[in-house]
């Protein structure tokens, strides 16, 4: 149980996020109105995705330095969780955009960059499933994973800032300081980021362990 303390923390933080996210004080802003509370759910998806995809690329680099089945599985499962979080981030962003900007999607540098980044990672999953030889699959996908991370980060965080965008944190304005200045929101936002990220880690933990069990079972069957 002491090994699983962070899972308890995940549950506590997420329940806190939902309750305080809906009941807590939020600044009264035009256009955004109550939708400002989406900040506790939409933005942590992207924070969590970035952290989890960074873990994935670390596993891939470690795999290339010292190949092992374990590192390959971990790189794959973390990337998968990262893609799911990114897709949820896109979907929630689209809903939010519909009711604040008036459209589901617009050719905005931030939005298109995020979509391309998701497609790049989608290609990682397709690439993996298309190679049957295990060692070849692990090595090629590890190399591709490094490329994918290096391509996705500028698309998500650097290029949108160089031009004008509807999305906060673009066109030279840093992050979302306008809302972040509000200390009431900070009290919920930071726990939310930690909570949702830990949830992603937890899901990855379970799916990776299941894959380890599967691989061990195959080995036993072969022996």
């Amino acid at each position: 149980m002491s090994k699983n303390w962070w899972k308890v923390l995940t549950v506590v933080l997420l329940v806190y996020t939902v309750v305080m996210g809906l009941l807590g004080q939020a600044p009264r802003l035009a256009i955004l109105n109550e939708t400002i509370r989406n900040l506790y759910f939409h933005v942590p998806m992207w924070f969590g995705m970035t952290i989890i995809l960074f873990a994935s690329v670390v596993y891939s680099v470690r795999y290339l330095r010292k190949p092992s089945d374990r590192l390959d599985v971990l790189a794959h499962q973390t990337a998968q969780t990262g893609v799911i979080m990114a897709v949820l981030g896109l979907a929630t962003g689209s809903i939010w955009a519909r009711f604040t900007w008036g459209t589901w999607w617009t050719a905005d540098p931030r939005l298109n960059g995020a979509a391309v980044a998701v497609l790049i990672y989608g290609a990682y999953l397709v690439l993996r499933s298309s190679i049957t030889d295990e060692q070849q699959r692990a090595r090629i996908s590890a190399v591709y994973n490094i490329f994918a991370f290096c391509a996705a980060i500028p698309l998500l965080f650097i290029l949108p800032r160089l031009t004008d965008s509807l999305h906060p944190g673009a066109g030279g304005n840093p992050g979302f300081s306008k809302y972040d200045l509000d200390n009431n929101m900070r009290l919920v936002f930071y726990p939310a980021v930690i909570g949702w990220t830990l949830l992603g880690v937890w899901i990855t933990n379970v799916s990776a362990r299941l894959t380890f069990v599967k691989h061990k079972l195959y080995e036993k069957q072969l022996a």
Partner: protein
Amino acid sequence: MKSNWLNCLSRRALLALAAVLLPMLSAVAQQTAAAGPEMADQLRQDGKIYVVVAVIVVILVGVLGYLISIDRKVSRLERELRD
């Protein structure tokens, strides 16, 4: 004697000033609330927001409970495989 009278006058002047200014303060506050962007104040006053919170918490706890049960199933598989 003279200072006492002055004190009394200044106190009265202060009270009169307060009587004029304090209602203005509340009027200003009302004005900003009315002019400020619209929020779901009625939903909060009705207490219906707690219904939304309860529903989301039930779903969140349900999903997390499911994740915990899958986690424990995998742990059991790991133990069985080890033995």
